[in-house]
């Protein structure tokens, strides 16, 4: 009973922050001398105005769910995974390579195999900073950031060298048809990737709260000394945790390649899915369900930016302002609670964990 009340309370803060963020957007649109109604109409229509719009929303949302889950998972175990970006990139390359390298396989084997290579690459990318933290106490924030850069430049080298699959473009070969994810609405790019993402969210929930390993990881996250006292091997669990976080982001990269890109494109600068994942995790209060909703919100906002510019002549940066303000409002939870007095009425339960 208590728990559900707390969750509702959190949801209230999130919703209030979204509304406040949109209000900030209105102010900026008015300052720019444009029409907020026209603007927000365009924003809405971009995702919900047509079937194609909606399927593209799903496609925008899918990678954010994965990177959001990756960050949230690590956070629940007491670690800051700033490395989802790099894990996502190596996941892409791993899946792309497995997608064209193995030939003659049936789809039922090739797809999981290619996804598996993405997972493996991401897991490795996460496990390394985890290992450095466990063995040498090196802070994972620094090392995951470092791993992002290594991912960027290592894949850059590979796709311009040994894995170059095109006469002059820095891309790999296209993956075989047997490795492509099923698209279920003809004429759109809607594919089963979104269901893999939702399954990953369910998995994270189940793993963290319903398994003994999840119990251990959360214990280490909250109080490593007490976890150690309870017989949990703290350093080993730090490695596991970062490995799983990396695997989630890596799977996200793999899904993107197998469903949309079909090949690995040289990443000249960070795409930002990993960093948006941090925002998504924050908005979703590091809970899998919250992450899914947060990813949809970000996917929705991102999709609407261009149409707002082309239809309502509102600079697309307004959308960045809206998403940034939502993040600020959610982080300044106390402030939002003050703005909306209803939330501040019940005191006492301060550090809600859900």
């Amino acid at each position, binding site marked *: *009973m*208590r*728990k559900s*009340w707390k969750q509702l309370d959190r949801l209230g803060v999130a919703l209030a922050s979204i509304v406040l963020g949109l209000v900030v957007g209105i102010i900026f649109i008015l300052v720019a001398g444009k029409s907020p109604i026209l603007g927000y109409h365009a924003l809405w229509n971009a995702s919900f105005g047509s079937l194609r719009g909606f399927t593209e929303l799903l496609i925008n949302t899918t990678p954010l769910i994965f990177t959001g889950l990756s960050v949230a998972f690590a956070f629940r175990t007491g670690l800051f995974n700033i490395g989802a970006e790099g894990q996502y990139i190596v996941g892409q390359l791993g899946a792309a390579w497995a997608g064209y390298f193995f030939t003659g396989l049936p789809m039922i084997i090739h797809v999981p195999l290619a996804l598996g290579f993405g997972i493996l690459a991401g897991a490795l990318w996460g496990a390394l900073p985890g290992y450095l933290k466990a063995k040498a106490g090196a802070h994972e924030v620094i090392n995951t950031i470092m791993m992002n850069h290594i991912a960027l430049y290592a894949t850059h080298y590979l796709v311009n060298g040994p894995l170059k699959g095109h006469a002059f473009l820095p891309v790999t070969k296209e993956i075989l048809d047997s490795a492509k994810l099923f698209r279920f609405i003809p004429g759109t790019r809607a594919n089963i990737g979104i269901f893999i993402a939702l399954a990953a969210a369910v998995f994270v929930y189940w793993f963290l*709260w*319903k*398994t*003994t*390993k*999840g*119990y*251990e990881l*959360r*214990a280490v996250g*909250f*109080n490593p*000394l*007490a*976890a*150690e*006292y*309870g*017989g*949990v*091997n703290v350093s080993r669990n730090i490695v596991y945790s970062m490995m799983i976080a990396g695997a989630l982001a890596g799977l996200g990269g793999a899904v993107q390649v197998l469903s949309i890109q079909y090949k690995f494109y040289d990443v000249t600068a960070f795409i930002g899915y990993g960093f948006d994942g941090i925002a998504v995790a924050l908005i979703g209060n590091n809970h899998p369900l919250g992450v899914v909703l947060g990813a949809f919100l970000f996917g929705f906002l991102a999709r609407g930016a261009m149409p707002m510019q082309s239809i309502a002549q509102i600079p697309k940066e307004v959308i960045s302002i809206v998403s940034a303000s939502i993040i600020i409002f959610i982080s300044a939870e106390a402030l939002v609670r003050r703005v909306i007095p209803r939330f501040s009425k019940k*005191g*006492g*339960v301060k*550090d809600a*964990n859900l």
Partner: protein
Amino acid sequence: MVPVVQMKGIVKEFPGVRANDHVDLEVMPGEIHALLGENGAGKSTLMNILYGLYQPDAGQIFVKGEEVKMTDPNVAINKGIGMVHQHFMLIPPFTVAENIVLGTEPRKGLFLDMNQAIKQVEEISERYGLKIDPHAKVEDISVGMQQRVEIIKALFRGADILILDEPTAVLTPHEIEELEKIIRSLVQEGKSVILITHKLKEVMSMSDRVTVIRRGKVVANLETRETSEEELARTMVGRPVLLEVAKKEQEPGEVVLEIKDLHAKDARGLPALKGINLEVRSGEILGLAGVDGNGQTELIETLTGLRQPTQGTILLKGQDITKLSPRKKSLAGIGHIPEDRQKRGLILDFSIAENLVLQSYFRKPFASGVRLKWKEIQAYADRLIQEFDIRTPSQEVLAGHLSGGNQQKVIVAREIDRDPELLIAAQPTRGLDVGAIEFVHNKLVEERDNGKAVLLISLELDEILSLSDRIAVIYEGKIVAVLDAKEATEEKLGLLMSGAAAGEEVEADYA
């Protein structure tokens, strides 16, 4: 005379509990007012309301006759109220002086005037006899000193009403004497003190008046000189309490724990254990007496696998367990009530149920394969909550939301219910009320009667003397004596603990 503090009809509800139910409290100037009540009675809550940390659902607060809305601690501080919490709130890497002036730093232009700060700190410490080194880092000083820092911090902000929430629970007997002197010098200066403690002796010796709370309601308001320990215990718990432990004679059995020439280093890498030899038998409680910091912590940690010994062996029922991990030692039959409940013993962000299976979540019936079986875990928690009288509305409540004493009960319940061959109980009754102490003492004796071995580590000589069958004294990392409890007296132990070796007589006993 106008009371300095008057609280009227205070009500505070938390989900599922009414922590304060129309509480009235009056404190006179220059008075030491004791607040007494069972674990979870609502004492800390009431004081947090007075200090502006919680908002009451109903009721009024008057300071020196004037009504005040305590919306946050700054209001309370401005009105001259200071509070030292049950669990300290200092910043470990900062120095003593930095901690004290934090938030009210004296400035020189834009900059912090540290010299001025140190001077002011020294003034206060001089005036009230609170000796302290302003340059020392908080993480390097003892708990007693940290408490002193908290007190000076409150005085620095001009407190003349000082709330002390269980200040003596973490102190050594010597430090308690010092604190008593400090409190006396404070009231001589005209300040008032509200003192929360579970130790009836302290209530009797220190306070002028006592307010007793039971389940959120005031049940008595007494003049200290007109009451007695027995009456206080009875009013507080609602039934007569045995202040003595009933224990029958019993022959100890085989050796359960055997420690041979154990050496270990402390956290700073200095030798802390210098050749410990000790035996604990089945069916006995062995009390380990010693001044804090003589190797007790390191001994416990080496025995439980949290610290690696540099030399020596540990045998459990004849089996070498010296190098085993904490998990393996726990499975081999060692239970452990850690001395610091918030550091090692609990995960404050976990529910009570989750905390109760901290040592056994991976085993039947709480897990099957990789799956946790929540139904079993919750049923188990409900049973222990009932059996150990943990005051909470449900097993879902976070451990961090329990009262201090009830947090301790969660740990005690978990470790005793596992029924280990060897139970290492460090400060097992820290922060418990008299009723709960009676209960835990009986449980420890019950373990002993059932043929289990109990190693009791306590700073309270009373507890050691009344529970133990044999008493070992630790001094500078060595066992300097092992006495039969019947021969031990407080004086004898005190002497041994201070390093005055008792010579041959001790050797003879030991063999």
